């Protein structure tokens, strides 16, 4: 254990050490937010001393991190943080992603200074709290950005690191103040439940985070912590309905962070429902699920369903055990269908403001999106699974037909509509008529058979007449007669069973058609 005085104490009283100002001005390493306005396009832009903030640098050879004149003491660090969060964050003249990059880097340097000097717990806590809020806010505000401008993973790593450190600080603080009774009205840690809750929500469903919350001293398990804990438990027990409800009622800030988990919750919900509500011919109304899973628009939910391989018909989702695509990972915000939605919205002149996890972060809009009118879900009837009586019988009767048709290549889910019916009937009639005509045409070769018959007849007669022996003549005549009988019988069959019906049928059809035309 090293004594406290082993750590360096900073002596730099500005937000940026003078040496660095000179160096960065010379090397043209100034950030757009640090330049004297109007000199941006100069060959060497001028540094605005009041706006320069020490940038993050890794420890490297020849670059001592321990130099007191380059380190800012805790008071200056606090001042830096408040400059960053009061002035810089609200700048509207540059895109927010640029502001974010700037803050990300400068805050990292602030944290670095804190660690090198091993500043006191009180300072640590008061510095870390706003920094954590910033990371959490950024994760929500920028969640739809492209990976090139915002990396949610790196942001989350920083958030986790700071959050864990803060929680450790709280724990130590608790331990040190065990003797003093007044811990709970300490201004410094009055926000602790808020950050405990944030930790649970960021690490939703994580057993370690849940256990931490369960092990918290009673005094810290406020309603906020309890409800976040319940959210996390609901998430891990896949009670998506309750989880979504809790997200709605959380305070705005936590609600925003929690909504970043919505894509996972929705995926899980759709997966479970595709098994539980698996049905051949029933549909789940899109509108109901939209409300339950906190979607903003029908389009989002339709896109999600399609992405996971579920079919949509007549504004209903067709859940089926086999159709959910397990291989599809959680849809991230930068996903294709999201891009599709974006283009859709642009095409229809809708300002693109929100996609997967609700809207852009302005408390007003957030509330609008999140606080759905109460009682919606109670009034909406869901799948009418429990039909009785006639309806049930009809469904039972329908089933074999559907099954038969399925073998003929008609999809199970197809609904027979009027136009479809007419089309299919016409097609069938046309095919039948063609068949009859083809049949007539194919009968023609039979006439050939009569030629054969005539020749046979004549040949035989000539043969009989040419025979001189009386006895032989009678024999041949008898055989001939027998043969004639057999042939006549076959001809009778052909005419009676094949020609006549076809002829009659054709005649009838023609007379009917003629009758219809004449009439």
């Amino acid at each position, binding site marked *: 254990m090293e004594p*406290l005085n082993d750590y360096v104490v900073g002596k730099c009283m500005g937000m940026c050490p003078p040496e660095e100002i000179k160096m960065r001005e010379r090397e043209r390493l100034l950030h757009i937010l640090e330049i004297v306005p109007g000199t941006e396009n100069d060959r060497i832009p001028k540094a605005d001393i009041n706006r320069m903030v020490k940038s993050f640098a890794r420890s490297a050879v020849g670059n001592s991190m321990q130099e007191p004149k380059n380190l800012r003491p805790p008071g200056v660090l606090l001042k830096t943080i408040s400059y960053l969060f009061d002035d810089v964050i609200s700048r509207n003249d540059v895109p927010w992603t640029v502001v974010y990059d700037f803050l990300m880097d400068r805050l990292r340097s602030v944290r670095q200074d804190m660690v090198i000097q091993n500043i006191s717990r009180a300072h640590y806590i008061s510095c870390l709290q706003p920094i954590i809020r910033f990371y959490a806010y950024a994760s929500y505000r920028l969640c739809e950005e492209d990976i090139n401008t915002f990396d949610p993973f790196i942001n989350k790593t920083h958030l986790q690191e700071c959050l864990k450190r803060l929680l450790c600080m709280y724990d130590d603080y608790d331990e040190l103040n065990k003797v003093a009774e007044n811990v709970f009205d300490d201004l410094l840690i009055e926000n602790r439940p808020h950050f405990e809750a944030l930790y649970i929500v960021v690490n939703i469903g994580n057993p370690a985070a849940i256990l931490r919350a369960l092990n918290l001293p009673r005094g810290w398990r406020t309603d906020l912590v309890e409800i976040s804990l319940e959210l996390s438990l609901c998430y891990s027990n896949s009670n998506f309905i309750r989880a979504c409800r809790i997200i709605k009622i959380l305070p705005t800030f936590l609600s925003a962070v929690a909504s970043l988990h919505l894509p996972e919750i929705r995926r899980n919900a759709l997966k479970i429902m595709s098994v*539980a509500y698996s049905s051949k011919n029933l549909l789940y109304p899109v509108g109901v699920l939209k409300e339950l899973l906190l979607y903003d628009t029908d389009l989002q939910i339709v896109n999600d369903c399609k992405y996971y391989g579920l079919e949509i018909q007549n504004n209903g989702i067709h859940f089926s055990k086999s159709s959910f695509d397990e291989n599809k990972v959680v849809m991230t915000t930068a996903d294709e269908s999201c891009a599709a939605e974006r283009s859709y919205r642009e095409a229809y002149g809708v300002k693109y403001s929100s996609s997967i996890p609700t809207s852009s972060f302005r408390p007003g809009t957030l509330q609008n999106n999140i606080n759905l009118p109460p009682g919606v879900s109670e009034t909406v009837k869901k799948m009418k*699974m429990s039909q009785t009586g006639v309806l049930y019988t009809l469904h039972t009767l329908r089933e074999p037909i559907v099954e038969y048709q399925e073998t003929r290549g008609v999809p199970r889910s197809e609904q027979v509509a009027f136009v479809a019916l007419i089309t299919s009937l016409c097609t069938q009639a046309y095919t039948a008529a063609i068949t009859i005509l083809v049949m007539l045409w194919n009968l023609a070769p039979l006439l050939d058979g009569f030629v054969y018959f005539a020749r046979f007849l004549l040949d035989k007669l000539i043969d009989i007449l040419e025979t001189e022996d009386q006895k032989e003549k009678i024999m041949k005549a008898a055989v001939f007669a027998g043969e004639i009988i057999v042939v006549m019988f076959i001809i009778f069959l052909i005419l009676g069973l094949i020609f006549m019906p076809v002829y009659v049928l054709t005649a009838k059809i023609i007379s009917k058609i003629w009758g219809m035309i004449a009439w």
Partner: protein
Amino acid sequence: MYRKMTFMTLAHYLQIIDRSWRAQDGAKIALFISLRHDHAKYPGYQVEMPEGLVERFLTAPIDELVSLHLKCLYCIGQGDFLGAYQHQSALIQSFAKILQVQKEENWSLPIMYTVCSDLRLIAQQAEKQRVGISEKPGEILEKAAECLMGCFRVCAADNRSSEEDTKRIGMLALVNQLFKVYFRINKLHLCKPLIRAIESSPFKESFSLSQQVTYRYFVGRKAMYDSNYKAADEYLTYAFENCHKSSRKNKRLILIYLVPVKMLLGYIPSKTVLEKYDVIQFWDLVQAVCQGNLKLFDELMEMHESFFIKCGIYLIVDKLKIIAYRNLFRKVYLILNTHQIPVEALQSALEYLGQEVDLDETQCIVANLIYEGKN
């Protein structure tokens, strides 16, 4: 022998160690270098500066070990566990060096077992005592784990020796010690490489049974945390069945995890077993789950919350609620005796038992049950 110890002088003690060292009697040295052995309690062995005396009786390398051991005893005598920890960790580091030089022999492994588990115990004590200015919680235990890893590396790297003399046979004991540390400081992700090392070891079956039981107990618990209940059941069942019947305390520990895992998989423990191993707390829970009595279940959760949290089974017990739902719904089905149960009926059953749920949530619960195939 213990009786004799009370009268044994330090010189005599050193002579015995010297003789055992020459005879390569690992077990005996292990006994005499243990912090839990009787000799540790006698003030005669608690020497602040034992180097001079020790060097008169012992030769290198064992002299260093014994000096550190005696210093450690001294610190414990003074109640300074942090100091004791530092001496013990130095002892292990020098032992690791000795172990590394010993080629083709593994008779000293028993010593390693003893000093390593002593280190862990002393680190736990030190952890309680830490002054708490600049360390994070669990820091001492973490350092102790690093120290144990040093020994582990020496053992794992010994792949030239023949099968009878290999030090790799000592790996499992170290892994178990490391498990104990990691579970205590809640760093379960560090267990994974250890498990892999053991599972791929050619001596997997030849480790001693007691070590295997311990190993499976921890791997089973880890599987439980990872929600891999089938595997957890397998490991814990093995541990429970093979744990010696006289070590009731261990059997009870195993049962605390085995019962919820089994219940989640649908096996209900008998009352006699629960009574026999003094985990009767579970009986009410079993009743509540079997009857689908969610009201009782919630009450029990609240009542035993701290017990469940302390054992780290809160989350899995919370999952048993799903089984309770299933049993409740089955009762509703039996009452109605139709194969189409209106969701409203299920909802009113839930509401009767004090659950605040509406139709949507009831449907969600049913959907989950169907999804998991619990019918």
